[in-house]
């Protein structure tokens, strides 16, 4: 069996993205796909600069990061001690680990209207939901994996609730642009959030590996 070129997989990967965008551009230009439903990829690309400059994406990014960090700090302060307690006392672990796993898998974000009642339509609500979503996985005795999962859940919920209650950083931006029917801007903002999330997950992955090595 011949060895495969190490560039083949990245070329296929990149080629697929470029190919899909080109096909979409063609379909929309030919109006087979309505431009009022899906904007031209070139329009989305062009609107990146506008979204960054006019919509204050740096400030919104800072708000989302700030809320995530605040919730993340709470997760670390509460989740890690609970995790250590469960690690130290076997019978507590046997009793409550299944509860934590159940809470970690529960769709707690659905309770966001409840948090709105408790804390009002404010950043505090977003932070508390981020914390609530991330603390159970972070408290699981597999501390490094749990903490990474907890922080991922935290970011997902922070951005999601920003979108749902139309408040805060990047999530609100998408909601705003969609309500203004700025389709290229909406798609560009979604791409930006996806890229920011990927960056966050990559940093967390690296952090987890670093912590595992130092253990």
């Amino acid at each position: 069996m011949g060895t495969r070129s190490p560039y083949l997989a990245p070329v296929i990967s990149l080629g697929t993205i470029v190919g899909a965008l080109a096909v979409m551009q063609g379909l929309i230009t030919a109006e087979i796909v309505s431009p009022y439903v899906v904007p031209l990829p070139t329009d989305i690309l062009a609107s990146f600069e506008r979204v960054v400059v006019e919509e204050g994406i740096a400030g919104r990014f800072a708000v989302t990061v700030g809320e995530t960090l605040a919730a993340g700090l709470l997760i670390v302060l509460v989740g890690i001690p609970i995790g250590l307690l469960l690690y130290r006392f076997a019978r507590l672990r046997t009793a409550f680990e299944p509860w934590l796993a159940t809470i970690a898998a529960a769709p707690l974000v659905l309770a966001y209207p409840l948090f709105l009642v408790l804390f009002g339509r404010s950043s505090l609500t977003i932070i508390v939901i981020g914390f609530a979503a991330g603390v159970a996985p972070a408290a699981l005795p597999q501390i490094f994996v749990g903490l990474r999962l907890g922080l991922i859940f935290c970011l997902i919920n922070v951005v999601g609730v920003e979108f749902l209650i139309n408040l805060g950083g990047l999530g609100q931006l998408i909601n705003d642009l969609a309500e203004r029917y700025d389709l290229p801007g909406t798609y560009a903002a979604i791409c930006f959030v996806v890229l920011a999330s990927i960056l966050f997950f990559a940093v967390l992955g690296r952090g987890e590996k670093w912590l595992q090595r130092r253990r």
Partner: protein
Amino acid sequence: MAATAQITGAPGQVNLSVSTIRVVGALVLLGIWQGLALSGFFFRDVVPPLQKIAHGLVALFGNGAFYSNLAVTGGELALALVIGGLAGLLVGLLLGGSELMSDAYESWLSYLGPTPKIILFPVMIMLFGVGSGSKVAMGAVSCFFPIAISVASGMRGVDPTLRRVGRSLQANAWQMFLKIELPAMTAPLVNGFRLGFGVAMIGVLLAETKLSNQGIGFMIINAYARFDMPQMYALLIVTIAFAAFVNAFAERMVRRFGARTI
């Protein structure tokens, strides 16, 4: 069973069974709740006493609108799982069956999988309208990723000896898949559907809370708008308990098929 096992501690320590610890834990939590509810710190019904929540649950189960909305959400969720599940299964099989495909595309799945899907809701509305279609699409997109990732990993984990046995018995591709690969990866497949069910449920219900006039998500946001807190608590308890039940059942199935869940 672990749940009822008597765990012995050091001499002189009080030996409490795991069940006792759980009962005590549950009673402490309920006591704290009831204390907060009766403390007067919170505005009326924001933290309702337990008896009011129980009354809300009884009222919910006696409400005909609950069942019609449940049918809407259940239908959307089922359709989302079928569409997202089949797409995830197909993509997972393709990626798990080819090293090149896996190298080219699987990192996309791992990175896109955990991104917040609810931000795609405006796109789904444009593509599928404000009705059930956009909710089904949200659920399908949400469950596609964990299912595809689990299936790809399960496909790669099939013991090569089993495949060799299949080849030696001259099994064709379909027989190889149906008789050897599928049974060998039952655990990751069930685990993928377990994870997929959870995120699909979140996707569908959150979309219903954002823009809908039917479904359980709509009922939750409607209860919030009317400040009907007992009903909102009842709906949240039923929804989260149902998700927890399905998750626990699927987890038990996964363990039965011999895999660990994280």
